């Protein structure tokens, strides 16, 4: 993800809160979060070699996939659950998000915007699956399973009765203020479950079992 995504998340997380980082990789960001914000943090990572790196950093880490990772924790064990760059790779993102809100009070999701202008132009002009700085892998190598835009994500949140408390958008030049769905390559959102939503349970994607 864009380095500013991590800087933004660091600003959003209040000191001394409890955070669970899903897909924590080698633990660099989690370690920063713990050091700079005095956060009580844990990570979940699938790859044993990366888990070993986390252990070297002295982090509490669980080896498993994200669904297994969430299942380890009791209700509301964390203030924040972080999904930075992993949401688009999940087989069942809606189920994971529901679990994330069981385990944590707020959820931070950072994702790639598949409606970024560079992506649109590549599809339109080259007629090929786009590859950009933020989508560096060939279609046959990418871990991304879901190709959604910022607007898609907003629709998803609305239907899931999730409130986007804060958003930030970025491209290679830095923060994006205007027309994020066109100009931003990546987005990060701080989410809260919204019990006052008018949306019925029937259309709520978090309740759908597919």
């Amino acid at each position: 993800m864009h380095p500013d995504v991590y800087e933004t998340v660091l600003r959003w997380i209040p000191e001394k809160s409890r955070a669970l980082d899903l897909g924590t990789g080698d633990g660099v960001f989690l370690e920063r979060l713990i050091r700079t914000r005095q956060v009580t943090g844990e990570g979940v990572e699938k790859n044993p070699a990366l888990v070993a790196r986390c252990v070297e950093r002295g982090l509490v880490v669980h080896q498993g996939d994200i669904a297994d990772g969430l299942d380890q924790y009791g209700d509301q064990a964390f203030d924040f659950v972080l999904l930075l760059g992993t949401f688009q790779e999940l087989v069942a993102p809606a189920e994971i998000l529901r679990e994330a809100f069981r385990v944590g009070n707020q959820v931070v999701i950072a994702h790639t915007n598949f409606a970024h202008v560079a992506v649109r132009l590549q599809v339109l002009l080259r007629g090929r699956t786009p590859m950009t700085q933020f989508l560096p892998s060939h279609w046959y190598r990418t871990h991304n399973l879901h190709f959604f835009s910022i607007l898609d994500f907003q629709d998803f949140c609305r239907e899931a009765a999730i409130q986007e408390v804060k958003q930030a958008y970025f491209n290679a030049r830095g923060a994006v203020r205007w027309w994020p769905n066109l100009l931003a390559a990546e987005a990060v959102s701080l989410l809260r479950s919204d019990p006052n939503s008018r949306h019925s349970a029937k259309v709520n994607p978090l309740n759908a079992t597919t």
Partner: protein
Amino acid sequence: MTSAPHTGIVRGDLQDQKVGDYQSPLGMTHTQTVTLPGLRTQSGFTFDHVEVCYQTLGTLSPARDNAVLVCHALSGNAHVAGLHPETGRPGWWDYHVGPGKAIDTDNFFVICANVLGSCGGTTGPASLNPKTGKPYGMEFPPVSVRDMLALQIKLLDHLGIARLFAVIGASMGGMQALALAMDYPDRVRVCIPIATCTSHSAMQIAFNEIGRQAILNDPQWNGGNYSDDHRPVQGLAVARMVGHVTYLSEFAMTHKFGRKRQAEYDAESEETAMFAVESYLRYQGESFVKRFDPNSYLYLTRAIDEFDLFENGSVTELLRSVRARFLIISFESDWLYPPPQSRELVRLLKRANVPVTYLNLNTQYGHDSFLIENPAFASVVRHYLENELRARRY
């Protein structure tokens, strides 16, 4: 680490290895025996005195806060690392205990004691019953994992160690580590259970039962009253062979043995040499019977089959008192103590808000993965202990 197995780890475990040019940085190490007073077992039997054979390595800090208790598994003993002064054999965990190793004797004061009911110098069925002057045999009271633990605690009291820095153990040793962290929460900071479980499954009991039946049906067993010349060695050897099969993995079986023969076909005798795996199992059986007591095998397998970490109450209640931080390790290829058992343990602890780091290593050598040379395993344990030690000093 996740890819092809490390070529350096095919040497196998150290317990029954032939003495070769194996070098230990610890050199010769010694065990010592102490007589401790009064131990009451869970079954209600009271020993007036119990002998404990144990080994210590490294130096106890002036604050007495760097002790690491290593709990051995079913067939282990107090000789954890270094070379045995008489046999020259390395200790069973010499790969991982020593200066600069996973459990660094430059940092830690390592204690390893032979468990109650075993036969490596601690009181067990082969010890003399003071009331009869003869070996206990089957008169020995049933032993539980918690009885073993009670004796470990007595030893710690004797050594003046109020609080361990860490307890670490695999398999049966992991059960003791878990019970220690739960039953004696004030006495340990860090708990590292490896390839273990909270209670045996039907399959784990089943394999132990095969081993026990092999011993019980050996005519030499004689109700547990056998002399040194007429021990039920056949039964014990078969038990050990079954055990060894469950400690290996399909990968290890294929790569160590496959369908290889022990020797070339001999045209003169027209005999086909036995399979390498047969020879290996026979060797393991034969070497085991020289150092292990058949009755001890019955008692210890019974103890681990009966073990239930949560036998004394509800899981939530029992885990509430736990204060240690955990590193839990399982091995993907371990089908005797399969990773889902460790994961269930992790889940229970995490849901009780215990800080747990869990790692399922891809080591391909089955349950034996903790006994062999295993750089990935060693690195994780060493770094975890180092970080915990550093965190403590802040």
